[in-house]
C-alpha cells in the first residue's frame, strides 16, 4: 500500500523468507539511498546483506537532488558513479542574486581543484539514484532486498538482535548479528529502541516546485535573497535531468499550507522567477519544514544508525543525503573488519566519533545558513543586508553571505585513527583526517585505485607495507605529477589511506615500522605501545 506516497517504480513484494534466511549476519533496515549504498559497500567486502524495505516500491516525489563531489567519489567506488554522472546534471557554479538586480552579486565554484574524475556536484532525482543503486545491489548477487517487509519490533537476542517483520501475509522473526538502521528521519528502529533525537526545529515553510520545461538556461545553482517575485524572502533554482527544474521558495511561518501548494498560487511565483511567458508543466509541489537533530550516539551495541535516522539537517547546503553517504563510507569498512574478526568491536566506536563529528559540522553549517537566510528580527536582517550590499564589490563580504555552505566532506582532525604528523609539511599536501583528493594517475584516476582497502601511496619509498595493505608507488607510474603535487609527495615520502578514502598518516621518509604502526592504529583503533613519535 502506498498510503498516498507517490510511486516511481513498483517492485514485487517478496514472500516470507525460508527458514535458512531467518538468521543473517547483517540486516539493513531501510532501502533508501543510504541503506542501499551500505549494502553494496559491504557486499564488495564479501558480505551477504539483507535489506528490509517496508514499501514495495521506489517512492517518487521531491527529495534529495544534489550529490556532492565526495558522495560521487563514494558512489563511483560502489560502481554507479559513471551512470550517475551520465544521467544527472553536472554543475560546479553557484550564483547569488539580491533584490531586483539582474546580475549576480557573486558566484562560487564547487570544484576549485580541477582535473578530477568527478564533477563538483551532480543533480539527479533521488528515485533515479535509488533505481541505479537497486540494480547495482542486485548485480552483486550478495544483497537481498526484501520489498514490502516492515520492521515492527526489535529486541536483543544473544549478542545480536531479533526483529519482528511484517509482510503482506503475516509476521516473522528475523535474527541478525548486526542491524544497521538506515530507515530515515522517522526511524522505526530508533523509536522501537526508545532512543533520543535531540535538536532544534525551525519556524519556516519552504515550497518545493518541481516543473518540467524546455529552457536554455545554464546548469548552475541560482539563489536569490529578497527577489521581487518573493519579497523579503529567498528562492532557489536547480536544474534536474529530463527537463525537470526545482524551484524552492521560502514562505515564512504563519501560512495556509494547503493554499500555498495550489497551482494558481504557485503560478505567479514561477512566472516571477522564470519570466511571464514561460511554458511549463507541474511535476510535483510540496511544502517542507525542517529540523536540525541528531542522536547522541550512533552505535548501540549491535544496532548502528546511519543517514537521516541518525541525523537531520536543513536542506541548505545539500548535507542530508550527502551526510548519509559519508556515514556509509565510514561505517562499511569498519563493520567489515569487525564482522571478519580482523578488528575489535571497539573500532565501531570510531564510527560513532567520526560520524557524530561530521553530523555536528553539517548541523552547524546548515543552522548558520538557515539563520542567514531567515534572519531572526530586524537587526539581524539589517546585518545580513549589510553583508549582501558589500558583497558585490568586495570578496571579503562574499564570505559572509551564506545561501547554504554546500556539502564538503568532514575533516576528522582529532580522530584517534590518525597518526599525528611527525614532519613539518608547511601547510602542503593532505593532512591526516582529511579526505583523499583525486588526481589523474597513469591512464585513469587515483581514486579509481582506492577500492576499499588500506593503501600505502608513496613516491618511491623503501618502506614496505604490512600484509593486507595495498601499495601504490607513483614513482613507477606515468602521469603522476598531480598526485605528487596534491599530496606533497617528494621522493621517498608516503601516505597511508583508509578504505574510505581518507588520509590516516603521512611521512616524508617513512620506515617500515611507521606504516606498520599506522596500520595497527587503524585496525586496533589505538596507538601501539611503543609509539614512535
Amino acid at each position: 500500500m502506498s498510503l498516498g506516497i507517490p510511486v516511481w517504480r513498483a517492485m514485487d513484494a517478496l514472500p516470507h523468507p525460508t527458514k535458512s534466511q531467518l538468521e543473517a549476519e547483517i540486516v539493513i533496515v531501510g532501502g533508501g539511498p543510504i541503506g542501499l549504498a551500505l549494502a553494496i559497500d559491504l557486499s564488495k567486502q564479501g558480505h551477504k546483506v539483507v535489506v528490509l524495505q517496508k514499501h514495495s516500491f521506489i517512492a517518487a516525489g521531491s527529495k534529495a537532488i544534489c550529490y556532492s563531489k565526495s558522495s560521487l567519489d563514494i558512489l563511483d567506488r560502489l560502481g554507479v558513479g559513471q551512470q550517475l554522472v551520465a544521467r544527472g546534471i553536472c554543475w560546479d557554479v553557484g550564483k547569488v542574486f539580491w533584490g531586483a538586480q539582474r546580475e549576480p552579486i557573486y558566484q562560487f565554484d564547487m570544484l576549485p581543484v580541477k582535473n578530477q574524475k568527478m564533477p563538483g556536484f551532480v543533480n539527479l532525482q533521488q528515485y533515479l539514484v535509488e533505481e541505479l543503486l537497486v540494480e547495482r545491489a542486485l548485480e552483486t548477487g550478495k544483497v537481498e532486498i526484501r520489498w514490502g517487509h516492515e520492521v515492527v519490533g526489535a529486541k536483543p537476542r544473544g549478542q545480536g538482535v531479533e526483529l519482528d517483520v511484517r509482510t503482506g501475509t503475516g509476521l516473522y522473526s528475523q535474527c541478525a548479528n548486526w542491524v544497521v538502521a538506515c530507515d530515515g528521519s522517522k526511524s522505526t528502529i530508533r523509536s522501537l529502541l526508545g532512543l533520543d533525537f535531540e535538536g532544534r526545529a525551525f519556524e519556516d515553510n519552504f515550497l518545493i516546485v518541481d516543473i518540467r520545461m524546455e529552457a536554455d538556461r545554464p546548469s548552475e545553482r541560482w539563489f536569490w535573497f529578497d527577489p521581487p517575485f518573493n519579497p523579503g524572502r529567498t528562492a532557489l533554482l536547480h536544474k534536474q535531468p529530463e527537463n525537470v527544474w526545482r524551484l524552492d521558495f521560502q514562505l515564512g511561518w504563519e501560512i495556509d499550507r494547503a493554499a500555498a501548494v495550489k497551482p494558481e498560487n504557485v503560478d505567479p511565483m514561477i512566472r516571477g522567477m522564470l519570466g511571464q511567458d514561460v511554458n511549463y508543466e507541474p511535476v510535483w509541489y510540496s511544502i517542507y519544514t525542517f529540523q536540525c537533530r541528531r542522536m547522541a550516539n550512533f552505535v548501540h551495541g549491535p544496532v548502528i544508525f546511519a543517514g537521516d535516522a541518525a541525523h537531520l539537517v536543513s536542506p541548505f547546503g545539500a548535507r542530508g543525503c550527502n551526510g548519509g553517504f559519508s556515514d556509509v563510507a565510514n561505517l562499511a569498512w569498519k563493520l567489515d573488519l569487525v564482522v571478519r574478526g580482523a578488528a575489535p568491536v571497539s573500532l565501531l566506536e570510531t564510527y560513532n566519533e567520526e560520524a557524530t563529528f561530521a553530523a555536528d559540522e553539517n548541523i552547524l553549517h546548515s543552522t548558520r545558513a538557515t539563520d542567514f537566510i531567515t534572519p531572526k528580527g530586524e537587526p539581524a536582517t539589517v546585518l545580513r543586508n549589510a553583508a549582501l550590499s558589500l558583497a558585490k564589490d568586495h570578496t571579503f563580504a562574499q564570505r559572509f553571505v551564506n545561501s547554504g555552505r554546500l556539502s564538503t566532506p568532514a575533516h576528522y582532525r582529532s580522530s584517534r585513527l590518525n597518526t599525528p604528523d611527525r614532519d613539518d609539511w608547511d601547510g602542503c599536501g593532505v593532512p591526516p583526517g582529511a579526505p583523499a583528493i583525486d588526481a589523474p594517475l597513469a591512464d585513469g584516476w587515483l581514486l579509481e585505485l582506492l577500492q576499499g582497502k588500506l593503501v600505502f601511496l608513496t613516491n618511491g619509498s623503501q618502506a614496505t607495507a604490512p600484509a593486507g595493505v595495498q601499495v601504490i608507488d607513483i614513482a613507477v607510474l606515468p602521469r603522476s605529477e598531480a598526485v605528487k603535487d596534491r599530496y606533497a609527495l617528494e621522493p621517498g615520502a608516503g601516505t597511508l589511506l583508509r578504505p574510505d578514502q581518507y588520509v590516516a598518516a603521512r611521512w616524508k621518509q617513512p620506515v617500515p615500522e611507521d606504516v606498520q604502526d599506522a596500520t595497527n592504529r587503524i585496525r586496533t583503533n589505538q596507538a601501539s605501545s611503543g609509539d614512535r613519535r
Partner: protein
Amino acid sequence: MTLGLEPNLSDPDGIYGKLVELQIQHRPEDWPLVSSRLLLILINHIGDDDVLLAAFEWAGALNGD
C-alpha cells in the same frame, strides 16, 4: 594579539567628528545599515578572532559588567 582598549588615536575628536558627519549624511532609518557595513568592513580588517570576540564582549556589556 589582544584587544587594545588604551587610547590609540592621534586625533580622537577629528575621527569622532567624521563619524558624526557620516551619520548626519544618512537618514536615521538608514543608519543601522551604514553602521553594520562599517562593522563588517572593520571586522574583516582586524581579522583576529580573539580580538573580535573580546570586542564583542565589551560591546555587549551594556550594564558595564
